[in-house]
């Protein structure tokens, strides 16, 4: 479990905070989600939940503000729910890319809802479609990386 958390943190520190130049406010690459997915789908859902929550708490303490904590938290909860759906309901009908997209869009939807709780419902109409559209490429990136990583990770853990 600790290795999953460490992985999540190292991925986040590498690239995600640096992309403030182009995208929307509150939008990030979500590379940390790769580690959460790996922990959740390969190890054990419980480890995944712990890893996600620990990552959110630590990142918001180290890098973010109280506002970003709530955004990350709501996005993280939505993305964990999506992972639960994949693991227990959808199981095998969705490929890796689809899992990445589902998690990314769930995360961004959670963030949009947090924004609407903080700023009022009017921003939701403008914010949500853009977030969903941008969640598609980031979800594809996350899912593809997860696909490349799932086998080595599995073997490194089982052996």
């Amino acid at each position, binding site marked *: 479990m600790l290795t999953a958390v460490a992985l999540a943190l190292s991925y986040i520190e590498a690239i995600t905070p640096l992309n403030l130049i182009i995208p929307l*406010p*509150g939008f990030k690459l979500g590379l940390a989600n790769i580690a959460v997915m790996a922990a959740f*789908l*390969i190890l054990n859902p419980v480890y995944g939940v712990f890893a996600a929550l620990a990552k959110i708490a630590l990142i918001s303490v180290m890098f973010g503000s109280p*506002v970003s904590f709530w955004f990350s938290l709501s996005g993280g909860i939505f993305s964990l729910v999506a992972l639960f759906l994949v693991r227990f309901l*959808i*199981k*095998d*009908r*969705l*490929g*890796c*890319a*689809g*899992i990445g*997209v*589902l998690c990314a*869009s769930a995360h961004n939807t959670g963030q949009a809802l947090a*924004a609407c709780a903080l*700023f009022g419902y*009017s*921003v939701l*109409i*403008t914010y*949500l*479609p*853009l977030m*969903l*559209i941008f*969640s*598609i490429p980031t979800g594809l990136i996350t*899912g*593809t990386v997860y*696909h*490349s990583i*799932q*086998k080595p990770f*599995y073997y490194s853990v089982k052996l």
Partner: protein
Amino acid sequence: MSIIADMEVIMLENSFSPTRTPIQFRKRIKPADIILICSLIVFSITLILTKPLLQENPARFVITHLEDRSYEYSLHQNQTLLLSNNGYDLSVVIEDGTVFVQSSNCRDQICVSSKPISKKGEIIVCAPAKISIKLSGEGDDYDAVVR
């Protein structure tokens, strides 16, 4: 591409093992993925297209501007206004959330023939009288929120 061949072999080996194997190795992309992505795109495009309809911008005040002075009236109160400026008299009616010029003694009668206005930002003008009638909402509207 030997990675893919490896995966097929391993999945095959796993299926022969006596214990039930957990679902672990997934393919990169499947038909359901495409459906998911397309439905996301369709959903967000639908939201973008219906955005102007869903946003409510109610007008609440009628602002009449007469050359050097302005008056403000509530749009929701039915009333008849008599505005005089520059030698011309206008009779403006506010009724059921719409505003129109009932009568005027200007020559061209453009203001009278103007359609009734009801939305924020709409305007009726009588040029000879130098009178303009404008509808405005609660206050400033935000186009985007920047944090």
